[in-house]
């Protein structure tokens, strides 16, 4: 065998092998071709791309595929909001459907000043871990644990911890992606309409007596808010008041009467007056003279 053959034969053989494998791959790529709807990448581009999972799908890619596949609506993405929905609707050739803008809210006021602790917690500083250790360190077994899992879950800088170990929502940054709601082991986070401020700031379902020992700002189910509400938006069930945000006109009467300040929020000016005009039969509850504040100074003097 001469030198030329010694070089050419291996080259030829390896070349032939490569050619065969290449052809094989070419055929296989035809067989295993994944057909992608051309609208999927377009919808994908219209989505914010945060992969936050707020839509209920594993990520923006999955959400885009679901929208094109018809299993999700054009406004499936809560983060992109109306702008993204409109753009997607254009791609899909549908009318955009608008929903009310939502924002997260912390339904607990049990910061380290008002909610006593029954134990010290030494462990992973994560609410989902701490809840396994006998439901958290606070006396109240319903409220915020205060280790900030929701803050870690928030990808939009809408949540941060106050110095009193309670999360605070920046509603302008909140995109209602639902991640904090999913993360919170106590169900303290809730999505409510963006422009709604009045809420029951408590989750404690114990009887009033026990709630009082748990936290000084808990709902004791005294039903004063129910009596005072003009529209019947406030109800009490399981020793806990709750507000129907569709019925609530944000008149703020319940906030005024709440003895423990479990109900909070700024009332809408003129809401009650407008309601009175529309419903002439409605009578405003008479303001009872407050006795307690009058007594206290007298005691202090004695």
């Amino acid at each position, binding site marked *: 065998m001469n030198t030329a053959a010694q070089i050419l*034969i*291996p080259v030829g*053989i*390896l070349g032939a*092998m*490569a050619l065969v*494998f290449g052809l*094989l*791959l070419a055929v*296989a*790529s035809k067989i*295993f*071709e*994944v057909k992608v709807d051309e609208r999927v990448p377009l919808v994908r581009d219209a989505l914010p791309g945060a992969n936050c999972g707020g839509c209920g799908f*594993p990520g923006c*890619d999955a959400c885009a595929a679901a929208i094109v596949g018809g299993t999700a609506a054009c406004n499936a993405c809560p983060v992109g909001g109306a702008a993204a929905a409109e753009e997607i609707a254009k791609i899909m050739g549908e009318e955009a459907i608008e929903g009310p803008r939502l924002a997260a809210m912390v339904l607990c006021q049990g910061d380290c000043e008002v909610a006593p602790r029954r134990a010290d917690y030494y462990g*992973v500083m994560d609410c989902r*871990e701490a809840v396994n250790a006998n439901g958290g360190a606070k006396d109240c077994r319903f409220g915020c644990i205060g280790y900030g899992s929701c803050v870690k879950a928030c990808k939009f800088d809408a949540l941060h911890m106050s110095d009193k170990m309670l999360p605070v929502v920046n509603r302008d940054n909140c995109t209602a992606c639902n991640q904090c709601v999913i993360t919170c082991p106590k169900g303290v986070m809730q999505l409510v309409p963006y422009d709604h401020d009045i809420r029951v700031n408590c989750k404690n379902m114990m009887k009033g007596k026990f709630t009082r020992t748990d936290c000084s700002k808990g709902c004791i189910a005294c039903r004063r808010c129910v009596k005072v509400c003009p529209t019947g938006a406030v109800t009490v069930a399981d020793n806990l008041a709750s507000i129907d945000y569709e019925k609530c006109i944000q008149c703020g009467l319940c906030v005024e009467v709440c003895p423990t300040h479990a109900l909070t929020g700024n009332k809408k000016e003129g809401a009650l007056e407008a309601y009175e005009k529309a419903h002439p039969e409605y009578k405003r509850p008479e303001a009872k003279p407050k006795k307690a504040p009058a007594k206290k100074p007298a005691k202090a003097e004695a």
Partner: protein
Amino acid sequence: MNLLLLLVSGIFVHNFILSRFLGICPFLGVSKQIETAFGMGIAVTFVMGLASAITYVVQYTILVPYGLEYLQTIAFILVIATLVQLVEMVIKKTSPTLYEALGVYLPLITTNCAVLGVALLNIQYGYNFIESVVFGIAGALGFMLAIVLFAGIRERNELSAIPKALDGFPIALITAGLMAIAFLGFSGML
């Protein structure tokens, strides 16, 4: 009996990762979750089984007759690269989730030394066709066992209070070392 011995040897005694130290890259890279580790294990099993079969055929029908044994490495890499491409296409078609989860590590099987290692060892040990395939699959199962166990430990490590200096990769490497020591215990079996 011989094949059974090969199987036990491949999975436990001469475990590709923990005793031969081949295929460390995916072992450290794709072992953060048991699920992805398992997916990687399946992909490697498929590639290693097929690679041992095809490289055997290539060796004894093409390379040996033409006296080209010295081109073994290049020829085998060619076979493995093709196989990985094929596996990638199949997985993309059949399981997009697994495809996403494996990410960059799927193409990396191409350069996974465990796959090339098993092909070369088959020839070195003079195994016949059946033995080669069994050895390849056993090696891959050993790989899968090691990576899934490792992923389980790493998942727990995530939740433990580990000193800051060791958190992350350092503790993973220490864990891998301890696992290798533990697997040394099997060496008395054969």
